[in-house]
């Protein structure tokens, strides 16, 4: 019988492409022969926009890249500018940034875990995790007034000091949240069907993961112990004691979807540890260091990278000595993660493409910028 391959356009409007992504699937029945991601549906010329903005004005733009981890985007950008200008921010600012950053990491991972479950048909864990994420957003709202796009970290400091209740409420959140991780594990992580769907699917061995340029939980899921918070430490992460979870092939082989998923679950626990250590040590002080109103870095360029929830988030900034950056280039982790899907999804079924895409945890705002 004569058969031919079928091309199926998944997206740009599709429930599980996590935004406006179009995947061109070349299919033989249900078997995937090739996946080509087509991006650009959310392109907003952000990097070009930055060239017309002053340095502090760029911060809100970084919010809108990885909109699920806006705080961490701020963190990376202000870190780069401060490094370029050689500013030392007060200790209080560093502590608050780390706590807020880790809370943001938890919030981002909760979305990742929830939508991954959703991609596999488990609806309920998604809502449980969003319920918990809501509590983090409430903390952020109290701190800076916004729930999604914060513009909170400024060059040389923060837009506001933390709310007086922040420390108490964060501790309450930790106490509340720890048991819900156990709940998630019982409901989803060790569910037989869930394991069947994710174990040995989209396997990415360590060598291939490095070659593909994967970073963050996706790289660690493949068993590579690499975390910028420890390996190229920034801010005050070297003061805290935390582990770097890596994929161990708990239910299948190292680097499968389940490993990538489970690394995120464990990272959430590690983030809680960091917050617990930091929350009691916040020193008193000012949240704004002596930065001139007109931020004018010296001529030069800088590449600063941070461990964002989705991987290595790098900012390359070229300064020509004026008020506006001459060039801002972002190394977005999701962009690199998405490029790996072609390699990872070959030979699996349509349903697995959805699982693999979910396990890579991409955000289109960051890919298209």
């Amino acid at each position: 019988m004569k058969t031919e391959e079928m091309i199926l356009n998944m997206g740009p409007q599709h429930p599980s492409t996590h935004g406006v992504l179009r995947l061109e699937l070349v299919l033989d029945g249900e078997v995937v022969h090739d996946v080509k991601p087509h991006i650009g549906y959310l392109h907003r010329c952000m990097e070009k926009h930055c060239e017309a903005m002053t340095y502090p004005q760029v911060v809100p733009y970084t919010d809108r890249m990885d909109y699920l981890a806006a705080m961490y985007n701020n963190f990376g950008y202000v870190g780069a500018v401060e490094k370029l200008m050689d500013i030392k921010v007060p200790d209080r600012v560093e502590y608050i940034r780390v706590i807020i950053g880790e809370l943001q990491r938890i919030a981002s991972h909760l979305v990742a875990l929830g939508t991954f479950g959703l991609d596999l048909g488990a609806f309920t864990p998604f809502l449980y995790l969003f319920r918990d994420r809501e509590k983090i957003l409430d903390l952020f709202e109290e701190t800076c007034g916004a729930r999604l796009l914060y513009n909170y970290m400024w060059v040389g400091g923060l837009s506001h000091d933390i709310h007086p209740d922040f420390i108490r409420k964060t501790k309450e959140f930790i106490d509340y949240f720890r048991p819900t991780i156990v709940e998630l594990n019982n409901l989803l992580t060790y569910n037989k069907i869930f394991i069947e769907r994710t174990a040995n699917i989209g396997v990415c061995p360590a060598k291939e993961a490095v070659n593909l340029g994967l970073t963050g939980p996706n790289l660690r899921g493949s068993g590579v112990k690499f975390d910028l918070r420890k390996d190229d430490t920034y801010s005050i992460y070297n003061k805290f004691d935390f582990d770097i979870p890596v994929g161990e092939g708990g239910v299948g082989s190292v680097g499968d979807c389940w490993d990538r998923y489970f690394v995120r679950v464990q990272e959430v626990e590690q983030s809680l540890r960091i917050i617990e250590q930091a929350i009691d040590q916040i020193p008193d002080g000012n949240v704004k260091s002596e930065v001139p109103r007109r931020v004018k870095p010296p001529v030069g360029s800088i590449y600063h990278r941070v461990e964002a929830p989705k991987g290595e988030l790098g900012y390359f900034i070229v300064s020509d000595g004026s008020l506006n950056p001459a060039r801002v280039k972002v190394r977005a982790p999701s962009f690199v993660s998405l490029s790996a899907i072609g390699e990872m999804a070959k030979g699996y079924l349509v349903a697995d493409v959805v699982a693999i895409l979910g396990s890579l945890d991409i955000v289109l705002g960051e890919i298209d910028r």
Partner: protein
Amino acid sequence: MQNYLTEIFGNELVAEITVYVLNTIPVLAFIVLFVLFAVWLERKVSAHMQDRLGPMRVGWHGVLQTVADFLKLVQKEDIVADANDKALFNIAPFLVFVATLATYTMLPFTSIFVGSNADVGIFLVLALSGAVVAGILMAGWASNNKYSLYGSLRAAAQIVSYEIPTALVVLTMIMVYGTMNLGDVTEAQTSYFWNWGIFGGAGLGLGKFLLVPFMFVAFIILFISTLAESNRTPFDLPESESELVAGFNTEYSGIKFSMFFLAEFANMFLIGSILVIFFFGGYNSPFGYFGNLIGVDWLIPIEQLFWFIGKGMFFVFISMWLRWTLPRVRVDQLMTICWKYLIPYAFFNLLIVGLILLI
């Protein structure tokens, strides 16, 4: 009633047809009412499982929400794309619904009402639920949409595969009860609950106790395979929204979409009632009738209706519970469950039950 109608019409054939049509009306009414209720229940069950409230605005705790939704669906434009195969596209949803409706007429709701008291009742139920496949394939092909095609082919493969374990278990049950008439099956389990199929049926002696574990296995197999046949989670591959958007009904809107919807929810109760008829005594009360106690005869059918719907709803609730707890299996795993596990077990079960019945 048929004699009475024959007198009016003066023609037996016309009278017979009229009787059948009239018998369908209560069934149709039941399906519509049940679906209105079940959709609301599904939303409420899922909401409360997920720390939400669900519909709260239309009526008390949103009971009229489904009515409002249905009105909205009816008003919607009936979209038929140029590339669709018009004839098939238009027939498909009604074929699916009519097949489901026809299966309902076999169900003995009470001892005095059965839509069609056919002697091959369960056989017809199986045949007609298989006919749904034709409608789904028509829908998928006529939609001229790749997602619909995938959805419908998956549905066809799934329903046809799971017919086999279902049929094997049903065969076992026919051996146990010695009849295919669902009303007679129910009557065989009459009076108290230890006469129910799951407790080994109405027989006495050693055979009854030997049957119990195998009846339980049969119950589990039938539950899983009928769940798969009605495309419910964890077997909802034909309309797995995260992969195929909406499966075979992607292109449908308005009243035609609601026909698919109606059939899907009606199928949920159908599963429940088949399980109830074979294993849980059908419309029989577990501990005698209140009507017998106080000597009011007309109360008995009402009680029977209550028990039948109540037991059926219990299984509807379980399938909702499963839906909001479990992820979805993959296509190949679905087939593995059917061919590697359910069918051999069902065969084995059939053999053992046959031997027990011989001794």
